[in-house]
C-alpha cells in the first residue's frame, strides 16, 4: 500500500546548507511517529532529483519536494509545481517541473498535486555545517511543515501558497 503523501527531500548533508532538506525530513520523521501519522506519509531523500523519481510519485495524492535554495526568499517559499516544457539543461539533476513532465510521459496520466518547500541557504561548501541563518530558516520551515502535515489536503495546501 503506497502512502498517499510523499515528502521528498533533496540535498547533501555534507555540503553546508544543502543539508536543509534532509535535516527537515529527519525532524518530520520524529514528528510523524509522535503524532501517529507515519502510515500516511512516506519520506524519501536523495542528493538530486532524477528521472526515475517519477516512479516514486505514482499513486500519491500529494507530493512535497523539500530543497535548499540560494536565491530563495528567506526564510522559505512554498509553491506549487506544474508540468511544463521548460528545458532543464544544466546538470544530471531535474527540477520538479521537469520531473512532472517525465511522469506525464511515462504514465500518460495526470500527476499528483506537487508542492515545493524551498528553504533559503547561504553556503554550500563540502564539510561545512549549517549557517546560523539556515538554522533559523529550518526552525521556521519545521513549524510550517507540521502545519502542512496536520492538514494534508490539496485545498488546504493551496491556501498556504506564497
Amino acid at each position, binding site marked *: 500500500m503506497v502512502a498517499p503523501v510523499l515528502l521528498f527531500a*533533496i540535498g*547533501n548533508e555534507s555540503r553546508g546548507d544543502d543539508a536543509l532538506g534532509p535535516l527537515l525530513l529527519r525532524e518530520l520523521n520524529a514528528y510523524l511517529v509522535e503524532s501517529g501519522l507515519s502510515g500516511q506519509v512516506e519520506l524519501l531523500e536523495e542528493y538530486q532529483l532524477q*528521472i526515475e523519481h517519477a*516512479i516514486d510519485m505514482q499513486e500519491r495524492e500529494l507530493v512535497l519536494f523539500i530543497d535548499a*535554495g540560494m536565491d530563495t526568499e528567506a526564510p522559505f517559499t512554498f509553491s506549487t509545481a506544474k508540468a511544463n516544457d521548460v528545458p532543464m539543461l544544466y546538470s*544530471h539533476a531535474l527540477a520538479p517541473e521537469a520531473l512532472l513532465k*517525465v511522469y506525464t510521459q511515462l504514465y500518460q496520466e495526470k500527476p499528483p498535486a506537487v508542492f515545493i518547500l524551498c528553504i533559503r541557504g547561504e553556503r554550500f561548501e563540502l564539510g561545512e555545517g549549517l549557517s546560523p541563518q539556515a538554522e533559523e530558516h529550518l526552525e521556521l520551515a519545521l513549524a510550517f511543515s507540521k502545519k502542512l502535515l496536520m492538514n494534508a489536503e490539496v485545498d488546504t495546501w493551496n491556501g498556504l501558497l506564497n
Partner: protein
Amino acid sequence: MSPSLETATHPENLRRVAIDPVSRVEGHGKVTILLDEDNKVHQVRLHIVEFRGFEKFIQGRPYWEVPVMVQRLCGICPVSHHLAASKALDAIVGANHLTPTAEKMRRLMHYGQILQSHALHFFHLSSPDLLFGFDSEVSKRNIVGVAEIHPDTARRGVLLRKFGQEVIRHTAGKRIHGTGAVPGGVNKSLSIAERDELLKDIYQIVSWSRDAVHLIKQMHHQNPELYNSFGAFRANFMSMVGLDGGLDLYHGHLRGRDDSGNIMFDGVDYQNYTQLIAEEVKNWSYMKFPYLKSLGPEKGWYRVGPMSRIQNCDFISTPLAEVERRDFIAYSGVMPMHAPLGYHWARMIEMLHAAEMIKDLLHDTDITGSELMASGERGSEGVGVIEAPRGTLIHHYRVDENDLVTMCNLIVSTTHNNQAMNEAVRRVAQQYLHGHEITEGLLNHIEVAVRAFDPCLSCATHALGKMPLEVEVVNDAGERLSGLSRSSDGSVCHLN
C-alpha cells in the same frame, strides 16, 4: 600530440568567448575561446572549477567511516567512491582476498551503478543531441523533448535507471548513504526475496540494453562523416583490465595503449600507481593534468572511460556485449576509435555488459551466502582502484595506529580526462567555429564534445537556481561586446 591552441601567441589582440558553465555537465565548467577579428580561433581552454577539498574532508577521520563519508563527495557516482574506498581500506584490515559472497555483492553493486549511470547519460543527457541534432531547437533538445517525440526511448531510460537504483538499494542497504561495502567485505548479502525481485526484471533490462547499443550503432552507421570526425583527436588510453585481459570494471591491473593501439604497459599493480602517473599543474586551470611519467606531460596524457576500456581489453566475458565489442572494433578498423562520439557507443556496450553481469550474479548462489568478512594482518596504507562509469578512479589512504586517516589522495575519472576534453573542445572549435558568429547551436557543439566524456565535476550540491549559463564575447580591454545568458529555468536572454 603536443597540444595546439592551448596558448595563443598574442592573446591581447583577441576576442574572448566564454561559455560558463558547460550545461548538462555536473559542477562548474567554463570554455574560453579567443577569436581574432575574422572569428578565427586562436586559443581554446576548458576550465573546470574542480573542488579540491576531498583530502581535508577525509583526513583525521576513523578509517571505517570513510566508505560512507566519501559518498558525499559526489551526488552522481557515490557508489564508485564507496567501492574504491572500501577496496583501498581492505588492505588496512589485511583482507587480501574477500569472501566470494563479499566480492560478488560488491560487483553486483558496481554493475548496478554502471547500468544506472550509463542509462542516465545516454537517455537523459545525450540522446537529445543525438536524436535531434546538435543545433536543433534548444527548447526541444532535452529529455522532455525526447519523451514527446520518442516516448518509448524516454520510458526505457527511466526504467533502466530505476532498475540500477534498485540493485544499489538491495546491495548497499539504502537508496543513498549505503553501508553495504565495509573494509574487509560487506555487511549484507541478498535475501532470496531481494534476489527474486531483481530477477523478475533483469531479462527485460538486458534486452533494452541491447536495443540501446543497436540504436547508437545505427547512428554511427547512418552518419559516419559526423560520428567519425566530430572532435576527433589521437590519444593514448588507459584503463584497468581483468587479470585475464578481459573487461573488468571492478578489479584487475592497469594497461595502457598508445594512439595506434599498441600496448605501452600492462600488468601494472595499481598499488604502484604513483610510479606510473604524475599530475601537472597549469596556471590557467584549477584541475590538474595527469600524465604517464615515462612519457612526460607533453606526450604522456591519456584518455579513460568507456571508449578506452572497450578498446583496451582483449574480450568481454558476457556473450552479448562481446558480440557488440567485436562490432565496435571492426567498425573502427585497424586504428582505434578516437572520435569522442564513440564514447556513447562504448558506453552502451558497457551498459549491456553490466546488465548481463547482474543477470549472472543473480543466478550465483554465493550472492545469498553468509560469509561476509575477511581479515588478516593489519596494514597502514592501501590503494583502491575501480573503473567507475566515467573512468579509472583511484583512492589512496594512509592510516595511523589510532585508526585515523593521515593521508588521502584521490584521482577521479574526470581529472584523468582533463587534457583529452581540452583536445576535443579545440578540435570542435577548429571544425565548427571558424568564421562563424557565435550562436547557441554552435556553442552546443562545444558542449556536445565535453558531454561525450560524461564529466562529473564533484558537485553534489543541488540548490535551486545555482547554475546559470552565460556566454560572453569581450574585447581585449575586457569590455563585453555581446552575450547570451541561459538561466536555471532554461530561458535564454541577451546580455546588454
